[in-house]
């Protein structure tokens, strides 16, 4: 039984997992949907009530029924590197590939449907609240007056993209940024804007969840650090392992169950009282930098999750299993 890894070639973080799978002798096929009709090909037939499908990538052929798990990492757009790419071909190729894969009984990390839903930040915030995780006061609005009133109630605010995406024409980053006290909120009318009470943090926290495992790390915020967004922090303070309080662990596991995720990278900030404030959960968040700093076996945990033998039980999107009635 083979592990299918769906990602781009440059994804060296995925390599960290492939190395472990190779060491344990688990067959791996790695493909990028962008290479469909080039280095990647597919075929599936639905005949006499049965399905038989195959994928090939760089000369490797695998039966879709012979997959034990699928790891969705950083796939390119389907057929993006085809000889004659087009939006139509991308749709056709994506429908064919993901439609076939959706029909097979394998465990996903993460299922595309669960992943799509989990990317909605407003949905994340509400789920985190329901699971009992502290969420900083947040407003998402296109009403300038609502933004002004929120800023009066919470004078120290940050702004961040609702979607987490960044403009590409030209390529720009929109980090979480502190809002100036005298900010003019008129431009809120031009696009939904996410404003959030700034937490005076003493550390950033990353909780990486792999199946039932929680691996937490912290990075101390130095007094001189001007950046709110840890991704832009100038500090070279390393990440180090920390324990997860049982109450937080229970809430995080509840979130994962509700979201039907097998993998999640939770970002928190820790305040002076030691409270972990939920910021977001990236369903495919990077983990290599945490492992490199902390030595935590994240890539091994992912490899072990992916390598678990097929059980013949009906899988859920998050890899949990239930008896087939």
């Amino acid at each position: 039984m083979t592990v299918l890894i769906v990602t781009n070639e440059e994804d060296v973080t995925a390599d960290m997992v492939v190395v472990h799978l190779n060491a344990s002798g688990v067959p791996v096929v790695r493909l990028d949907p962008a290479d469909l009709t080039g280095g990647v090909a597919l075929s599936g037939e639905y005949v006499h009530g049965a399905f038989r499908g195959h994928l090939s990538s760089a000369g490797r052929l695998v039966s879709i029924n012979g997959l034990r798990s699928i790891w969705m990492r950083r796939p390119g757009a389907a057929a993006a590197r085809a000889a004659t790419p087009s939006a139509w071909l991308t749709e056709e190729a994506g429908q064919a590939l993901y439609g076939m894969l959706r029909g097979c009984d394998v465990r996903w990390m993460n299922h595309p449907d669960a992943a799509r839903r989990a990317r909605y930040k407003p949905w994340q915030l509400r789920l985190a609240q329901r699971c009992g995780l502290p969420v900083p006061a947040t407003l998402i609005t296109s009403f300038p007056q609502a933004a002004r009133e929120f800023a009066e109630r919470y004078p120290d605010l940050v702004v961040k993209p609702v979607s987490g995406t960044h403009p590409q024409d030209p390529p720009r980053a929109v980090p979480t940024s502190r809002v100036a006290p005298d900010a003019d909120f008129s431009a809120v009318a031009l696009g939904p804007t996410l404003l959030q009470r700034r937490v005076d943090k003493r550390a950033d926290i990353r909780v990486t969840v792999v199946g039932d495992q929680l691996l937490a790390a912290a990075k101390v915020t130095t007094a001189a650090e001007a950046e709110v967004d840890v991704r832009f922090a100038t500090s070279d303070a390393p990440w180090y392992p920390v324990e997860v309080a049982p109450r937080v662990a229970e809430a995080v596991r509840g979130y994962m169950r509700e979201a039907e995720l097998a993998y999640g990278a939770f970002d928190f900030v820790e305040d002076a009282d030691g409270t972990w404030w939920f910021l977001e959960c990236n369903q495919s968040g990077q983990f290599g930098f945490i492992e490199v700093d902390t030595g935590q076996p994240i890539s091994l945990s992912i490899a072990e999750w992916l390598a678990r033998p097929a059980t013949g039980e009906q899988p859920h999107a998050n890899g949990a299993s239930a008896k087939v009635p």
Partner: protein
Amino acid sequence: MQPFALNYARPAAELEVTAAYVYDSGLQLNVLRDGRIAAGDHALLRELGTTTSTAGSKTHFDD
């Protein structure tokens, strides 16, 4: 005037990794020029920042 959040935009950082390693489709891994597996060189990964949460990348919107 532009949407409020874009007032805080800055140029995206580009990761320059193309010369450091290349994908080997036989191994299904990226390898360094000397043939070693790139993922095993943690010092290099830290230096290049290729396994790091980034903002502004065209494809890596899941940080």
